């Protein structure tokens, strides 16, 4: 076959291949676009998580649990089921989040419970209103917060205590603690959000260069810079939970809720301390 005929023959194959590939790609297009949207939604949550970590956790808590007497919890069933009705918002919850984040809050809607940062209660975050965040960042942040919807626990409704609160006297005698129950409490009371492996509050787990909290508690009170009142490892741990301002570990700012003395019973506190002491 002459060169030109070979070329034409190859040309036919090439054209059919090209058309075939485009067709095959086209058949898959719908699925590809759906997958892309899913991946985009996931990226939005990732970006939102980073933004929340850099901007919001100081007032709203690392895991969105809120800070008592300061800012309301977002990772909370009340927020996802009742909040919009409470304020009379007629749009979607996502729009509510975006609107609040973008425009801020001049005055708190629940000033006795959550006064926020004073004047204004919550700053405006959108670039349009002088804040640091772009519109796409605020949307990503909303996606992150909305991702709590499926697992948000009941926080706002205070669970009734099983006994009298432990109070803030660190010299009191505590009943024997059950470390296994303490481990469960560490999750249900929200400690795990900052402490167990996270390094927002000092991490309880052993990590680079230092042992777990079980061993650290005893050595901590021997340190020169320790200015609290505890005289034993158990007292130190009790002090850390109920009297948060007594001593702050260097390198960490005060973000810990200050009212655990009112929201934990003596038994629950003892269980927690027993658990912490097992983390060496």
């Amino acid at each position, binding site marked *: 076959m002459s060169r*030109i005929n070979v*070329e*034409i023959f*190859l*040309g036919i194959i*090439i*054209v059919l*291949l*090209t058309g075939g*590939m*485009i067709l*095959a*790609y*086209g058949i898959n*297009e719908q699925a*590809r*676009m759906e997958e*892309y*949207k*899913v*991946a*985009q*939604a*996931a*990226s939005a*949550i*990732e*970006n939102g*998580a*980073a933004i929340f*970590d850099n901007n919001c956790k100081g007032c709203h808590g690392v895991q969105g649990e809120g800070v008592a007497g300061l800012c309301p919890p977002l990772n909370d069933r009340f927020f996802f089921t009742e909040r919009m009705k409470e304020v009379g918002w007629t749009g979607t919850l996502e729009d509510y989040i975006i609107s609040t984040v973008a425009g801020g809050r001049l005055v708190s809607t629940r000033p006795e419970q959550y006064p926020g940062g004073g004047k204004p209660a919550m700053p405006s975050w959108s670039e349009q209103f002088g804040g640091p965040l*772009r*519109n*796409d*960042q605020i949307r990503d942040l909303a996606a*992150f917060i909305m*991702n*709590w919807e*499926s*697992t948000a626990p009941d926080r706002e409704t205070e669970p009734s205590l099983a006994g009298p609160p432990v109070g803030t006297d660190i010299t009191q005698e505590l009943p024997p603690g059950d470390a296994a129950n303490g481990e469960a409490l560490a999750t249900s009371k929200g400690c795990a959000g900052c402490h167990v*492996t*996270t*390094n927002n509050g000092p991490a309880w*787990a*052993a*990590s*680079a*260069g230092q042992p777990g909290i079980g061993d650290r508690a005893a050595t901590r009170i021997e340190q020169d810079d320790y200015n609290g009142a505890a005289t034993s490892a158990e007292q130190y741990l009790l002090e850390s939970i109920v009297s948060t301002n007594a001593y702050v570990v260097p390198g960490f700012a005060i973000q810990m809720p200050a009212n655990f003395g009112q929201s934990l019973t003596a038994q629950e506190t003892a269980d927690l301390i027993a658990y912490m002491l097992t983390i060496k």
Partner: protein
Amino acid sequence: MLKSLNFQDLRKKAGSAIDHRVRIITAGMGLDELRAVVRGDPPTEKPNPRYKVHTTSFLFHIRPRYYEKGSTILSHTFRLGFFTAFFFFLELFTGLILMVYYTPSPGAAYQSILELESNVFFGQLMRDMHRLGAEAMVIFTALHMLRTYLTGSYKKDRSFTWLTGVILLGITLGLSFSGYLLPWDQLAYWAVTIGTSMAEAAPIFGEQVNLLLRGAPDIGAGGLLRFYLGHVVLFPLLAVLVISIHYYKVSREHGISLPAKYEEGNVSAEVKKNAKSRLDFIPDLLSHEVFLTTLGLLAVVAGIVALGYSAPLESHANPQQTPLDTKAPWYFWWLQGMLKLGDKSVMGIILPTILVLVLLAVPYIDRNPHRSLFKRPWAVSIGILSVILLIVLSYMGLPTYGIEMPAATRIIQDVAPEEGPGPLYEVPFDQLQPGVYAVSENPPDELCPQIDFGCPVFTEVFHGYNDDVIHASTAEGLEPYQQLPNAEAVMVVEDWQNDLRKVTMRITWDDVESGESTTYEKHVFIHRNSGGE
């Protein structure tokens, strides 16, 4: 009367009427001539009706009527000029298509690209084709220039054509660079910031040039719009103008050059005559060009559909944060390499300008009348040296060269880069088991013995991290910034939210100079569905 209606007669009359119409449309080729073209037969009439098309049709007029046989030898041109033009037209076409969905405003550009890729049929294919075509166009332009240089096809009559060619190289790079900014992601924003900052380094007029290019001291809405208009209006118009001049001279004035040996070599008169004999454009060369076009299209489509080429998209442009490992587009790595060598005015503006001027003047500097490779030792050596120099400078332009990133930063950036794909992002979500994983001399072979399927990918990524830290901690002969004496490191994985995990990497070491304990920590959030980036 009816009886005298001859059926044959009617057929004759109908046939000649159709033939007449066809001749009008094809400017002189009747049905039989068309069939002869398709059959590969010689022309059926004299004078050759196929030539007339070249006079009456605009599109055929700008093409040559015939080529000299020697100039069509594949190994002489490799059809590089043809493919450069092909890719230009591909870019025009795909570019016009993309304009349907793109918005050139900082608040909307990135979102319009996401919309294009997620909510438009074939949107991602069009974008990938446009990006791949652009890179191919730069490559082919450079190769075409190299070929023309080596075959000495810039001498004598062709000097001005070479000049327009260098201008086209500049326009091609301008098109590529201006288009680079449009997605408005971190990759685009910072690459173009670096590039236009060089304009600021221009002597005397630097600041004015910078303001003209960007519309503001830094790149914002004004810059994006100016770059968009440059990319979509100014450069394409210039390109069409200069391509027309360039191609007109090739097609009408001096033709494609013959290989040098036919002009100056020791070949017999008969071979020379054969090389100069004419090859009509219609039908064989036209057929050949259609073939090459389809081949080019197949290459682009296959590159995307079969080989997985994909136009990158990093996160939204953030003018307040430059990501680590920011780099220029690959065709400017040589420039980035030069910038690492010295003063930015000299390296960024003056030397490149001199380079361009030298390129433009090559036909006028080169006094050697010969075209054959063997008779131009200086020209060929300088050419080869320049290519080598370009490659070396390009290597120096890479972000890993010449930038002393502290070891801890480098190690963590390698595992989980700020932008783009990375080993940690490739780990299947279920293998990212929550826990604290400490770096040690002998890390476990399986990080997740508690689950049946184990976590092999995660283990491998951790081992990479582990080995890097140990290497920086113990290896001999490292630079101070590469050392991590007494290093201790962890990788911590935590469940953070539904289908979201947080991975923290923390390295503690003794500072080389002061001996103080220093810590570097970075965390990333990884969602189950977010793919590899």
